[in-house]
């Protein structure tokens, strides 16, 4: 069995792990590192519940190998909160009731975070396009869009 030792940074903390070639990144995060905020919804690259930031870009961690993350910087939903304070996106989801069952929420918030990094005043269409790879079976998306708009307003007030 092909084993590899990899080093990666997750939410600012360095980690080292010895993994099989075929281990998927989502399993490394959930099972080895016990960061179970990253969800597995479909396992077929469709739903986006497993979305994380991979060197700053939102990607589906069920479709990346753990070995590909060697030397990379990852952010999962657990890394959004800073100093016991919710991030703008998290607060937006809280204020605007951007979730129901919560299954899609980690992926939605990671995608929303990446969107606002690139564009701090996205239009509704740009928000809907950005989250088009994240499926939600509960909310109908309306409040998710509002949550990201809320976060955009808050982010702009902080960094005008």
């Amino acid at each position, binding site marked *: 069995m092909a084993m590899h030792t990899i080093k990666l940074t997750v939410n600012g903390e360095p980690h080292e792990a010895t993994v099989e070639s*075929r281990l998927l990144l989502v399993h490394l995060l959930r099972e080895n590192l016990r960061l179970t905020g990253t969800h597995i919804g479909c396992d077929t690259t469709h739903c986006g519940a497993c979305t994380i930031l991979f060197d700053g870009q939102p990607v589906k961690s069920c479709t990346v190998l753990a070995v590909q993350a060697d030397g990379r910087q990852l952010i999962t939903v657990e890394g959004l909160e800073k100093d016991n304070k919710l991030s703008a996106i998290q607060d937006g989801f809280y204020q605007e009731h951007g979730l129901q069952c919560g299954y899609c929420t980690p992926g939605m918030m990671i995608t929303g975070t990446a969107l606002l990094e690139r564009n701090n005043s996205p239009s509704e269409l740009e928000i809907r396009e950005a989250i088009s790879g994240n499926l939600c079976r509960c909310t109908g998306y309306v409040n998710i869009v509002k949550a990201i708009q809320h976060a955009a307003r808050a982010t702009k007030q902080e960094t005008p």
Partner: protein
Amino acid sequence: MIPAAFDYHAPTSLSEAVALLSKHGDTAKVLSGGQSLLPLLKLRLGQAGHLIDIGRIPGLEYIKEEGGMLRIGGRTRESALERSEVVRTRYPILLDTAQVIADPLVRNMATVGGNLAHGDPGNDHPATMLVLGAQVVATGPKAERVIPIDGFFVGLFTTALQPDEIVTEIRIPAPPARSGGAYVKFERKVGDYATAAAAAFVTLGASGLVERAGIALTNAGPKPVRSTAAEKLLTGRRPDAAALGEAARAAGQSATPSADRRGAADYKKEMAGVLALRALTKAVQRAGGR
């Protein structure tokens, strides 16, 4: 879902990657964005003994216009195409195409080289590259060779690439004056492969007649379909509604789709013609024809 076991290699140079491919022969596969390969391995529809990850080889991600060509590095991400100024302003057909591939998350990993090398007739870049007259640069153990796109797609999931060749660049001739291209796709939802889709490219002469036309279809047969019949119908003619309509109908006739969840074969054939007309109309507009 967990893939069957394989070994993983992460070469840091092109020559090292090619040597690994030569050593492991058919049991090796290039891993680029992984967005087609990993789902196949997870579903166990495919198998590999060795994955050669080209993700750590420097110098394979770029988009630049140089020497009368647009040069796209083999590992360039779809999201990079979407955000490229030169693509947006000079090659809008490429933006049309990148924007309808999969979804924004997949496009942060998926690469242009992988999209062509996979040889999937459902992929969107092949039709666009066919109408643009692109060239695929493949690097193997001896040297690099340039494969004209017309000879690149051999059959279902089969291309002209040797097992030890890596797509390192895609070259697209810079559009002559009064040229325009467009890609139009009909999909059931974001992230779906095309029910039908068409690419069109036209160059107009000084008199306003079509000097060169390219028309190709996605998911319309076992490999990407270039409709030379439709192209011939249009060449030398004024691109009016009648001419575009005739060419689009001919393009639809060149489709041989098969029935699946996306629709019956006849329906898809009809849609191929409809989308060819839309793509042609937009291409002519962009060429400044109307």
